[in-house]
């Protein structure tokens, strides 16, 4: 009985205590449900995002660069399909065997093989190794034929920059290549869009227009597992090709320029004297920009670098030359504008001038006798220009030269390698050389020697601005949406009435006319320095001025020897220059030609102008029809 009582008591204890525990259990379970609720309902969005972040990974693909076309819509920098070979290590059965097979198939070097092995050890097994960035078609076919034997190899088609005219446009376009770290970091857009294998502009317009040309990345989204392996592709977002850029250049004229300058060092520039369109801009020699796309070989690079004609220098923009006699139109204009002389002013040329015991020679040893402005220009009489420069003074000459664009960049915003050149005055010398100006320096400045340094494009612009009647134009190389037609421009220049009047560079338009006539006679009248290169047909007839720029001071002995060109060492030969515009009756185009160490301007440079004007003027009609960009189908 007692035992039973005790038993009942015991079970009471058990039941009571069970009740306490049971209540606690309910509380804890409610707590767990609350936690579930907070995670799954309240914070669901947050964790859903985190889960997607876990499983979805984006792969950016290199963007496709915009095309660059010439004025007529020909692609001069485009994109080409290239064939690449990738290895996916995790799919390879026998890596060594594969390497041996590829080595024989593609003639890979031992160094390349070593590189692949190193890459394989560095990358994850599902990351592809690029064996060859640019397979030739025959290599690609070969690999495809043996694909059954090359387990783990994937032929891939991708897009690469291509320059169809190879070296024709190198100095204008530059080229693209793999960027280094610094180049990626300094451009925000490149930094954002960079993916391995992407190339950026290293030089020229490819570099300065990078942000327009670059295009946007295509994006592939993949579901990946915890180890980063792609499981399946979710979507593909297409990228946008970079903007198309249309240049003012004419490939045909560019081609002829290249042809004329073949095997020579020099530059040809052609410009529309009203619109400022640069029609040709060629620096010789050039090199093939396609070589840089996949990394240039050491041999090829040395060949370009060590070429004595210096293909790496863009002579049109960064080549600095004494303008020689091509400066004479400006000297004459300056003298006329400042009323130092009138067209009838005459000087007697005896072949040399003495000044403070120093002798200044005319190119013609016997002298020209009494010469007027027109004859002095025609025969390029140095004595005449010594005299008017002396009367004018370098400071006044400097003002005129500056107005016509000397000493200023022409296309500065587009080419970071363009040089400003130099046109001196007395202040400049004092500030930079610390010495006073000497009158003798005025004399040689008057014939384009001495301190004066100009780029070929500056001379072209100078000539264009004389040709259009003395109005300032804004040279351009990219076709923009300037709504002004040629007629508008002409009208604006003559009437000074439109909203955007063209700055007059003269006081009296008669003076420009006088200079133009003098340049005409220099080319089209007997005894003119470029008379032999003239075209009589008024359709093509042009006016110009030769120049011969001394590279080295001629000693008295050399002057007496009167050496033939071939007898002088190449490095010591004069640069040959020629500036011209045409057609004379109704001018439209100006050009400048420089042949480095070519000898005299009349022999080496002027004949090229004849060829060029024939082509340029023949293409004038075509060019005028082509003005509306929208009509071009590329």
């Amino acid at each position, binding site marked *: 009985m007692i035992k039973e009582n005790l*038993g009942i008591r*015991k079970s009471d*204890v058990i039941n009571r*205590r*069970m009740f306490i525990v049971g209540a606690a259990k309910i509380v804890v379970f409610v707590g767990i449900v609350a936690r579930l609720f907070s995670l799954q309902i309240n914070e*669901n969005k947050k964790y*859903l995002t985190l889960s997607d972040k*876990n499983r979805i990974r984006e792969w950016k693909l290199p963007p496709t660069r915009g095309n660059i076309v010439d004025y007529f819509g020909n692609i001069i920098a485009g994109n080409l399909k290239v064939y690449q070979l990738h290895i996916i290590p995790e799919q390879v059965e026998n890596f060594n065997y594969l390497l041996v097979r590829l080595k024989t198939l593609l003639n890979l070097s031992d160094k390349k093989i070593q590189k692949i092995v190193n890459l394989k050890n560095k990358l994850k097994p599902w990351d592809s190794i690029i064996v060859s960035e640019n397979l030739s078609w025959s290599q690609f076919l070969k690999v495809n034929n043996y694909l059954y034997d090359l387990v783990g190899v994937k032929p891939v088609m991708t897009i690469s920059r291509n320059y169809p005219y190879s070296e024709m446009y190198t100095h204008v376009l530059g080229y693209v290549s793999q960027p280094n770290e610094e180049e990626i970091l300094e451009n925000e857009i490149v930094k954002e869009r960079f993916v391995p294998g992407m190339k950026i502009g290293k030089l020229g317009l490819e570099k300065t227009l990078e942000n327009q040309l670059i295009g946007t990345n295509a994006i592939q989204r993949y579901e990946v597992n915890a180890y980063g392996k792609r499981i399946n592709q979710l979507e593909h977002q297409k990228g946008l090709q970079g903007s198309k850029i249309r240049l003012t250049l004419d490939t045909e004229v560019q081609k002829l320029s290249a042809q004329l300058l073949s095997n020579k060092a020099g530059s040809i520039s052609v410009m529309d004297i009203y619109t400022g369109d640069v029609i040709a801009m060629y620096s010789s020699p050039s090199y093939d920009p396609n070589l840089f796309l996949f990394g240039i070989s050491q041999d090829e690079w040395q060949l370009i670098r060590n070429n004595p004609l210096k293909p790496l220098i863009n002579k049109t923009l960064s080549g600095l030359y004494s303008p020689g006699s091509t400066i004479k139109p400006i000297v004459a204009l300056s003298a006329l504008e400042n009323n130092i002389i009138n067209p009838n002013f005459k000087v007697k040329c005896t072949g040399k001038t003495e000044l403070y015991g120093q002798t200044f020679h005319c190119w013609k040893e016997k002298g020209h006798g009494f010469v007027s402005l027109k004859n002095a220009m025609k025969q390029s009489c140095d004595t005449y220009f010594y005299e008017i420069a002396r009367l004018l003074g370098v400071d006044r000459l400097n003002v005129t030269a500056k107005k016509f664009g000397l000493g200023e960049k022409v296309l500065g915003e587009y080419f970071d390698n363009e040089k400003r050149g130099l046109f001196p005055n007395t202040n400049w010398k004092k500030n930079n050389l610390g010495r006073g100006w000497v009158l003798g320096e005025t004399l040689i400045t008057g014939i384009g020697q001495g301190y004066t340094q100009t780029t070929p494009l500056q001379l072209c612009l100078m000539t264009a601005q004389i040709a259009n009647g003395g109005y300032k134009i804004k040279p351009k190389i990219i076709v923009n949406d300037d709504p002004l037609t040629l007629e508008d421009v002409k009208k604006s220049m003559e009437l000074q009435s439109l909203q955007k009047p063209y700055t007059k560079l003269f006081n009296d338009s008669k003076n420009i006319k006088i200079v133009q006539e003098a340049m005409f006679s220099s080319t089209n009248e007997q005894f003119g320095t470029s008379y032999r290169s003239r075209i009589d047909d008024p359709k093509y007839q042009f006016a110009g001025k030769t120049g011969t720029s001394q590279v080295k001071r001629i000693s008295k002995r050399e002057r007496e020897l009167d050496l033939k060109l071939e007898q002088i060492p190449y490095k010591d030969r004069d640069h040959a220059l020629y500036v011209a515009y045409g057609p004379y009756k109704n001018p439209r185009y100006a050009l400048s030609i420089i042949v480095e160490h070519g000898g005299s301007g009349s022999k080496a440079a002027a004949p090229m102008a004849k060829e060029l004007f024939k082509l340029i003027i023949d293409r004038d009609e075509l060019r005028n029809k082509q003005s509306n960009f929208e009509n071009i189908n590329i």
Partner: protein
Amino acid sequence: MFQRDTLNSELSFFQKIKEMDYTLLICITLLSIISLLVMYSTDGGEILFHTKSHFSKLAVFFPLMIFIAFFNIRYWHTFAYLFYLLIILLLLYVSFFGLKSSGSQRWMDLYLFVLQPSELMKIAIILCLAKYYHRIKVENVNSLTSIILVLSIIIIPTIFVISQPDLGTSILIVLSGLIVLWLGGVRIKYFVYSFVTFLISLPFIISFLKPYQKLRILTFLDPDRDPLGAGYQIIQSKIAIGSGGLDGKGFLKGTQSYLDFLPEKHTDFIFTLFSEEFGFIGSVGLLILYTIIIFRIIRIGALSRSNFSKLFCFSFAFSIFIYIVVNLSMVLGLLPIVGSPLPIMSYGGSSMLATMIGFGIVLSAKINHKQIIA
């Protein structure tokens, strides 16, 4: 005497069938089916190793549960101490000859499957203490000798298990033992005192922990401390559960598990996968299922006439509850990570074996609820 008792009190087979608790049986069956489906999902929607193995274990242990259910609970009372001693011996064996895996030595190879004796200790300790409190006089419960004796019963296996090392299981063994003490009538103030003592000595205990165990506690306090290392599991687990939302991502569509972001998804983190695929609704449903099981077991305890059955059922119900709470709190980021499986759901033979034996005894208690054990 033994013989006579058996003959006298034994129910007929049909009586046993009639007395079976079908609600509990159905709930356990349902849980087994869910566990199979989830295992199938961890295998990526294919019947692979884990699914097959889990199925074969269910195929053996579920019938074992039924088999135990038909045995009179008296036998468990009779052999409780022996069973406890047997498991102690196994723990001793394992500590010398056990299989090692990832730094701990807890298993013994039984050819057919690998046994983890510490899991069985979770049941054995309840049986042993239930028998003790069944037999002891109420006035002796709080005597010093009694307290020392029951504490030794708890501490001896715990030391073995901690030294394996296996913190999770040893905590569960201690808690399973303590609940019997509580139900047996040990004074509440002892629990309060020892809890206070525990809190005070906590810093010392921590200093005895292995470096990886300390790291787990630190990680629990701040999972973002090392998101790719120690905190990875808990962060990924929370992402999986949280991204499940109200109705889940759908069966076989849990990206966190399918793409291998979830660690230990077969075992301790199985709830994470379930919760990702079936969402809040599914998770609460599973909790309700567990709650029904627990309350069903408590009900059986309440029905039982013998204190042994009562003590066993209540304690077992509590330990099932504790397993669930520890496991869920861990995957939900409420507790530090200690290895503790979710009953029946988690992959692992010993845990399932122990749970099924427990269920079997409970079912037997139901069938024999009128039995008085001397």
